[in-house]
């Protein structure tokens, strides 16, 4: 059996940190970017930044799928709830601010909003309560989309529908490179998105952008090895696509999951909170499933919402331009118990992770 403590071994971590220290350039700064809330959690929770030389920085990109759901799509969920549809969702989503209110506020005002652990739970509840309409607010990256797809393809009951807000990670990574002034020297690619999509979608980063890219897992040793592999590439002056997380991530990803996604969804442009519209970055139910598409079924279409409140700097945190503690609201007006911006809401939002582990 795999002992996860082996991937948390302080002794091995120190050894890798020493290597990192030796490999790090002496006269220039390097900045690596990850795009996964779970990576940020591992890095912050285990204090991995304190292991790194001062000139090796790791920043968090748009890796929290809850944080980047635009207010307009929260508004759609709230509208459905207010119209009497039971809205089911993951717990992280409840407090994400919409333009007027969050789903939690809608629930407090009397709407039926229920937290589920899995989309299959939502389908089961709907099957047991046929007298009500149910929708599942489907949020998440490629890791989560396959489970939604399985339920779409599994002929859910007629009183069930999906409010799909899934987003795709590679287009967001490409956007970060387009920003230019972030000066990223390498990507730590997200292990569990990659479990589904495999390595191929990242090929363009080393090939077109000369950007070293390493898929890494989520234990401290995984992340440190990822950083080590990126530094090694930098030192050798090469840009390659490498896989640190071989126990989970295969070149082809998970073909069954990819097929399910393809059957259920088409890829369209999508809005990202704090970022804007990205081409080919969102999923929409295919036409033959439009009876299950909550937007079609209940004619709910919100085009524009209020994504960022005045003074909130989530839009800069999301793309890694500033650290949470550089936002004037951080831990003053905006706290985990009273979040202002989306990044403070989800347990994987960068601000929330920092607030919980290194509030200063």
């Amino acid at each position, binding site marked *: 059996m795999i002992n996860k403590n082996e991937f948390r071994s302080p002794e091995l971590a120190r050894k890798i940190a020493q290597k990192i220290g030796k490999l790090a350039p002496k006269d220039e700064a390097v900045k690596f970017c990850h795009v996964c809330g779970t990576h940020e959690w591992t890095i912050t929770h285990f204090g991995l930044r304190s292991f790194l030389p001062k000139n090796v920085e790791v920043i968090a990109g748009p890796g929290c799928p809850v944080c980047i759901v635009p207010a307009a799509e929260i508004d759609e969920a709230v509208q459905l709830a207010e119209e009497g549809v039971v809205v089911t969702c993951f717990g992280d989503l409840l407090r994400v601010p919409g333009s007027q209110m969050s789903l939690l506020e809608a629930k407090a005002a009397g709407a039926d909003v229920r937290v589920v652990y899995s989309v299959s739970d939502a389908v089961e509840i709907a099957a047991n309560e046929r007298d009500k309409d149910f929708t599942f607010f489907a949020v998440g990256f490629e890791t989560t989309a396959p489970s939604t797809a399985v339920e779409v393809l599994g002929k859910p009951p007629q009183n069930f529908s999906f409010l799909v807000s899934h987003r795709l990670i590679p287009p967001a990574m490409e956007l970060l490179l387009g920003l230019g002034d972030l000066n990223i020297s390498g990507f730590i690619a997200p292990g569990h998105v990659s479990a*589904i999509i495999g390595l191929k979608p990242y090929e363009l980063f080393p090939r077109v952008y000369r950007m070293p890219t390493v898929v890494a897992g989520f234990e401290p040793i995984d992340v440190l090895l990822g950083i080590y592999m990126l530094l090694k590439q930098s030192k050798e002056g090469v840009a390659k696509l490498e896989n640190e997380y071989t126990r989970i991530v295969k070149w082809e990803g998970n073909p069954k999951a990819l097929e399910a996604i393809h059957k259920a969804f088409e890829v369209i442009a999508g809005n990202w909170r704090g970022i804007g519209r990205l081409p080919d970055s969102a999923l929409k139910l295919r036409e033959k499933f439009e009876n299950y598409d909550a937007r079609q079924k209940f004619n709910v279409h919100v085009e524009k919402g209020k994504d960022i409140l005045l003074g909130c700097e989530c839009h800069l945190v999301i793309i890694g331009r500033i650290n949470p503690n550089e936002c004037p609201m951080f831990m003053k007006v905006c706290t985990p118990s009273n979040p202002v911006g989306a990044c403070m809401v989800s347990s994987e939002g960068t601000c929330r992770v920092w607030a919980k582990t290194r509030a200063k």
Partner: protein
Amino acid sequence: MCLAIPARIVHLEGNSAKVDFGEGVLRDVNVTLVDAKIGTYVLVHAGYAIQMVDEKDALETLALWKEILEAEEKQDS
């Protein structure tokens, strides 16, 4: 949200499995997306197994890394 945890398949019935996360409590997981077999490890995300865990690879990777790091250490010294 992309949090996913390895678990061992204990019982299998069609596309539904009971898995053990190592805490002794068995939980139901949908295994439509993987080639599940009793005794193997799967990566579970939000009630779905999304990938097989390559146990052998995990152990070999660790051993290999230790070897590489030690070899480099010798080179350095």
